[in-house]
């Protein structure tokens, strides 16, 4: 703690707490949100494609996928 | 040369003829422009000085919105009835007839706005000397809007909710035109002279004429695929 006299001074940011922590908290929230969305999207994609595959197994080399599945 | 000009003129002539036969559609754009312009005094109050100050901006924003309103019609009908496919199969360069289509579109939707603008400006008590600058800025600027908008119209061709999407795509691109167009009148009234603005608009028009037909042609090929 070289710069700050106490934790409360740190959280107060010289009276600018709303501006500083408002910036940081929104940024942190957006980053967490983006990470959650990205990882969840991956999980969903894998599950959905697996379900599609199981519904219509492919013969080796077969590349057909029917529209009726959607 | 003649073979190049042939398809260009054919498209231009046909689109103008179609616009003439469907006059009502065209008048709607003009009516929209007039109505939007006339709404502003009700919003900001009848104070003459204030109206005079906002007049260039109001006319320009209204012209921009009217252009936007009519853009989706640029290729839609040809896309539906198959004419677009035939045009894309024409051996002539695609950017050429795209330019013809945009030009016809501007003559039909942009030019009436340019002509109506000075009259509407008088409702805002704009000084007579500035009317010429206003008209000239619109005459140079609205073709740029049509050219840029054509790219957006080609990209959103046949999409659900294409109209809103089109607005989102092209409005940021319209901002520089708006700045220089409305700025020209302000500069003239402010005494600095509008030459620089008008020259930049003219340069922008040449640049748009040189580049956007190619982007538009590529977008149309993608859209019919």
């Amino acid at each position, binding site marked *: 703690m070289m710069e700050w006299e106490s934790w409360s001074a740190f959280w107060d940011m010289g009276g600018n707490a709303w501006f500083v922590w408002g910036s940081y908290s929104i940024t942190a929230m957006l980053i967490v949100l983006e990470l959650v969305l990205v990882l969840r999207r991956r999980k969903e994609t894998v599950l959905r494609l697996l379900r599609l595959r199981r519904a219509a197994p492919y013969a080796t080399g077969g590349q057909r996928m029917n529209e009726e599945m959607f | 040369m003649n073979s190049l000009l042939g*398809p260009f003129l*054919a498209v231009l002539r*046909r689109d103008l003829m179609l616009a003439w036969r469907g006059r009502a559609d065209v008048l709607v754009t003009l009516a929209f422009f007039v109505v939007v312009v006339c709404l502003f005094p009700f919003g900001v109050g009848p104070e003459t000085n204030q109206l005079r100050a906002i007049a260039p901006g109001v006319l320009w924003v209204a012209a921009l919105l009217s252009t936007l309103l009519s853009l989706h019609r640029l290729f839609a009908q040809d896309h539906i*009835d198959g004419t677009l*496919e*035939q045009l894309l199969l*024409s*051996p*002539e360069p695609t950017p050429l007839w795209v330019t013809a289509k945009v030009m016809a579109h501007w003559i039909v939707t942009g030019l009436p706005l340019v002509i109506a603008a000075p009259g509407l400006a008088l409702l805002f008590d704009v000084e007579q000397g500035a009317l010429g600058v206003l008209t000239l800025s619109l005459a140079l600027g609205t073709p740029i809007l049509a050219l840029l908008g054509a790219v957006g119209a080609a990209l959103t061709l046949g999409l659900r909710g294409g109209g809103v999407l089109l607005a989102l795509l092209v409005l940021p691109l319209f901002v520089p035109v708006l700045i220089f167009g409305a700025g020209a009148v302000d500069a003239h009234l402010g005494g600095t002279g509008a030459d620089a603005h008008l020259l930049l608009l003219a340069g922008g028009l040449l640049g748009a004429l040189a580049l956007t037909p190619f982007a538009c042609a590529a977008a149309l090929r993608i859209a019919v695929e």
Partner: protein
Amino acid sequence: MLEANDLACLKGDRLLFRGLSRRMASGEMLRIAGPNGVGKTSLLRILCGLAMPEYGNVVWKGKDTRRDREHFHRELLYLGHSAAQNDLLTPLENLRFACDASGDAPAEADCVAALERIGLGAQIDLPARVLSQGQRRRVGLARLFLSSSRPLWVLDEPFTALDVAAVADLAATLSRHCEAGGVVILTTHQDAPFDKPPAVLDLAEVAC
């Protein structure tokens, strides 16, 4: 003259066909057959250069059509599903525009003659919106009489909505075009009265 090399077509999620190769010589007529949704129209559009194949290429007179688009399209006439007729124009205006825009620029009298020959002499000055579906299609087909200098004709269901006499006349025109050294590729559901039945490419056999 026309070579399709190892074409593959992916539509949305479905691989319609792949490994489709075919060479066509001058004077040949080819009928693309197969049930609905097998990719007949997609194949025609790929051959014309309107759509890009997922794989493979189309070669016209030894040149890749995508590298030499203008030359290829100067020699191609494609009539698709939609008739390319604007409702507000008359058949004559529509026909003239179609020819002018594609760089043919025939004389007005030839256009009138072509329309009369296809049986639209009486409707020449009516706006297209009052025409029947068959009549609209016929305006498009009138271009065949004005485009005999284009060797490659690609026709999507040209016989639809035509009466018996018109079908016979069209079949004769197509045969004549082939005899003159042209190439015709078409799809059709009905048996057209060709003197010499065309070669058949059944897409159902190539389909994945």
